[in-house]
């Protein structure tokens, strides 16, 4: 079966809705399936469970929290990654805190899905953010699948999880297609995936950058053996998998579409430096500090982590 990333999200939602009557979806233009993941769900599951909302992100996110606190298992689809800034209060200050603050009385099984996170090629400053590190920092479970199979499996696990989870589907990963010969199944949160084994350098790549890292690994294969590790979940992070990889390679490069300062790459480097085996100073390739992506495509590209920089960083840690 040929499976696109968006179709994988669509399948995951449909399977979750079919399996558990508590699952429901909120969002803007989801009845029409504008963004893709909710295509045809309205016909199949009806307006009671596929709820087209007015443009009131704060209220419908709070509402989903209220529903999650009382037995539903809501999924919210956000049309733009920066809408997450509007509902940071709801996700971080309410949803994330209920379990602890109520002494374990309450759980908030809420999933936030952001199809098309990061640069969308020409959508400019306010539509091109990739704020996954903010949620990992806040302690909200954060998932960034790179492939259709992982998108399916991680979204299923996010929906089944008793805590809030934010799922970022990078715009640059949406065109990825796979020929799937295996059964699609939930993939546990917090487990990394080694996409390519290697002996010299571990490249940790997040989301769509996994595909860039694989291309660079292939290019460099004659000179350097690169291991490509996709954490898949940024919080909780699979530290044992990283430690095991560094036991093999002892060298680390992280490629991450966050802003440099306080991005997840910074955390990965810091943890490796504190606790893991490193033979050379590690490197990271990220967006610059405080990035606002400019409109013109060459400018947009200039600020995103790319193959050139990754290639240079891999060579640098080999010196």
């Amino acid at each position: 079966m040929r499976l696109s990333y968006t179709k994988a999200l669509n399948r995951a939602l449909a399977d979750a809705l079919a399996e558990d009557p508590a699952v429901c979806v909120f969002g803007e233009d989801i009845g029409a399936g504008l963004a893709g993941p909710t295509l045809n769900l309205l016909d199949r599951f009806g307006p009671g469970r596929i709820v087209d909302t007015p443009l009131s992100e704060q209220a419908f996110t709070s509402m989903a929290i209220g529903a999650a606190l009382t037995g539903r298992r809501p999924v919210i689809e956000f049309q733009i990654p920066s809408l997450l800034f509007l509902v940071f209060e709801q996700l971080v200050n309410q949803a994330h805190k209920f379990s602890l603050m109520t002494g374990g009385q309450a759980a908030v099984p809420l999933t936030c899905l952001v199809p098309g996170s990061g640069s969308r090629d020409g959508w400019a400053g306010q539509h091109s953010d990739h704020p996954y590190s903010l949620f990992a920092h806040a302690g909200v479970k954060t998932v960034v699948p790179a492939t259709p199979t992982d998108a399916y499996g991680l979204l299923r696990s996010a929906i089944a999880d008793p805590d809030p989870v934010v799922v970022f589907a990078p715009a640059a990963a949406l065109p990825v297609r796979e020929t799937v010969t295996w059964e699609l199944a939930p993939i546990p949160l917090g487990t990394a995936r080694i996409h390519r084994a290697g002996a010299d350098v571990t490249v940790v790549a997040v989301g769509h950058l996994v595909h860039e890292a694989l291309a660079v690994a292939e290019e460099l294969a004659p000179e350097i053996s690169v291991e490509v590790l996709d954490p898949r979940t940024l919080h909780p992070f699979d530290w044992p998998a990283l430690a095991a990889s560094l036991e093999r390679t002892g060298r680390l490069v992280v490629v991450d579409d966050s802003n440099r300062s306080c991005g997840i790459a910074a955390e990965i480097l810091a943890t490796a430096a504190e606790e893991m085996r490193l033979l050379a100073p590690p490197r990271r390739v990220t967006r610059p500090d405080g990035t606002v992506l400019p409109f013109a495509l060459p400018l947009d590209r200039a600020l995103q982590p790319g193959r050139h920089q990754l290639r240079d960083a891999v060579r640098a840690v080999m010196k």
Partner: protein
Amino acid sequence: MTGLPDLGTPAGRYRMLRLIRGFEELALGLVRSGAITGGIHPYIGQEAVAVGVCSALRPQDRITSTHRGHGHVLAKGAAPDRLLAELLGRTGGLNRGRGGSMHAADFSLGILGANGMVGAGGAIAVGAAWSARQAGEDRVAVAFFGDGALNQGVLLESLNLAAMWRLPVLFVCENNGYATTLPAATAVAGSATGRAAAFGIPAAEVDGMDTEAVRAATAEAVARAAAGEGPGFLECRTYRFEGHHTMERLMKLRYRTPEEITDWRGHDPLPRAAALLPPGLAAQLDASVTEQLAAAREFALASEHPSPEGALDHLYADGLRPRAGAAGTAGAAGVSAAAGAAGPVGVTESAAGTGARA
């Protein structure tokens, strides 16, 4: 006392007014003595709103509350001894000492929590109402909030959602005249009820010092909501006799006059409710409340302090343990941080599911 308090009779309602008043006085003393840290937002003066509203609710109905939430939580049936233990940060507290005054909750009674963010409970209650309708359950949700919350965008958004979807939710605005020091008269353009009416929500203004008036207005709105006729809105005109927060006692703020406070004290809801009772009954009820609160105090002060190892218990419902703040140490939360020692999803014994999940 076991079982839910009976608010179905004037005597039961008077007793609850007295219980809330007495509870707050007890808590004020414990704040002053330093036993309660962080202070409280006293509900004294506004008791008729909580009691009037909750007396018209059914056990299955749900509420969301505010930073000034003790009255709502007690009137919905929470045990005073466990609420007091919560204020004291003890393991016997409603939230095992993890929430304190501003987050007190009892999900087994439909109390979805006091909330520290002004206006936050409105849309959460709308979600609870939607959830109940989805599940085919006859439950109404009530959102309590203050006049200050009338200027929170999310609350106004939630009025629209509730009205559009005809949800069984009742918005109760406790207009006590001030948001901290800011007079409502200088902050709210138009009127509270006018805002609700603009969304097509039936809205009524009620004397919030009169338990029976609040009860009657609530009963009407709850009946409508339960019959599928959509949300309701009550503006209860009330007043807090104490400062905004106990901190205020230490300051000399002059945002309201002594005359204004004295005047409102003349509308105290307690004597008004007592006047409806046969002679002598109020005194009897007062005595039983005094006894109950003495027992609550004893229970709460005897309840254990939580141990620091459990500081991050319940952070995740699946029992996930976060890393400690310092590598290779046990950290304040006693969480092992040895690199690679624990799986990414280590589960503890004190995992989820320990409390009631409504």
